């Protein structure tokens, strides 16, 4: 098999999220033989919830598009070096909020930056702030309300700094 057909085969492979969905669907099919009423109720409820959150999802992906369009990750990475000082902490918080991507994409990037001199404490701050996402705020507000979202986001930002200090201290060689 040549390189081109191997790449085509890789592209055709199911993504992890599709595999996860497939496993759940197989589980549903299996359980449908034992308790059809339970499965019917769960499918109905899932459809109902999905339709309810669809406008929120459209809004979320709209914001993701705007951020992806205007964000230059290389610019952020430049400000997170060993000598970055206070500004480095500030940039780490901002980078964590803005950078999107699954861990298996982010770990290699931060592994390179670590080798290039980025402090462990700042990597920890960026990774912690992945939880504070402007683009996902509409969904958080929809499910938990505005006061909860504001209070939780405040504590997450604050604790990301403590997190950076502790992880930086404990992981020092």
């Amino acid at each position: 098999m040549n390189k081109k057909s191997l790449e085509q085969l890789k592209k055709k492979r199911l993504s992890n999220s599709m595999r996860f969905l497939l496993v759940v669907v197989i589980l549903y099919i299996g359980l449908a033989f034992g308790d059809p009423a339970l499965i019917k109720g769960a499918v109905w409820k899932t459809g109902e919830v999905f339709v309810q959150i669809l406008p929120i999802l459209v809004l979320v992906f709209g914001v993701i598009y705007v951020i992806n369009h205007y964000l230059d990750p290389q610019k952020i990475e430049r400000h997170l070096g060993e000598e970055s000082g206070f500004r480095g902490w500030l940039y780490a918080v901002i980078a964590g909020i803005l950078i999107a991507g699954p861990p298996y994409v982010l770990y290699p990037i931060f592994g390179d930056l670590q080798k290039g001199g980025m402090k462990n404490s700042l990597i920890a701050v960026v990774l912690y702030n992945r939880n504070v996402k402007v683009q996902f705020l509409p969904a958080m507000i929809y499910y938990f309300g505005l006061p909860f979202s504001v209070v939780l986001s405040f504590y997450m930002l604050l604790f990301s700094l403590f997190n950076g200090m502790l992880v930086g201290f404990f992981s020092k060689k």
Partner: protein
Amino acid sequence: MRKTINNMKTAIPMIIGVLLLVNLLNPLFQKFYPKIFTGNYFLDPFLGALGGSVSFGIPLTSYVAGGELLAGGVSLLAVTAFILAWTTVGLAMLPLEIIYLGKRFAIWRNVVNFFFSIIVAILTIITLNFLGL
């Protein structure tokens, strides 16, 4: 645009899968939730953080799952720790994190984040109660 479409391609099947799973498990376990999640300030977030640590994905999916668990009767304390640990603690991703960022960093980051999920959940609920929100 392509990046956003790729985000959607990852997120939508995951959200549907999680919704299907939560809506399948909720009717089965709903009757046990009041017995397990009693509003205890330490046990509830501890159990929530355990659940979040073994799951992973984008924060959006954790809000959907957490929202449905909350509607199913799980306490807000537990759900808060759950959504925090979902993104900050990654047991499934730990081997990968060790490879790229080092054993010491990866283990300490996950340990600290697990306890922070519990502490932040408790502080959030105490603050909301204090403010009467």
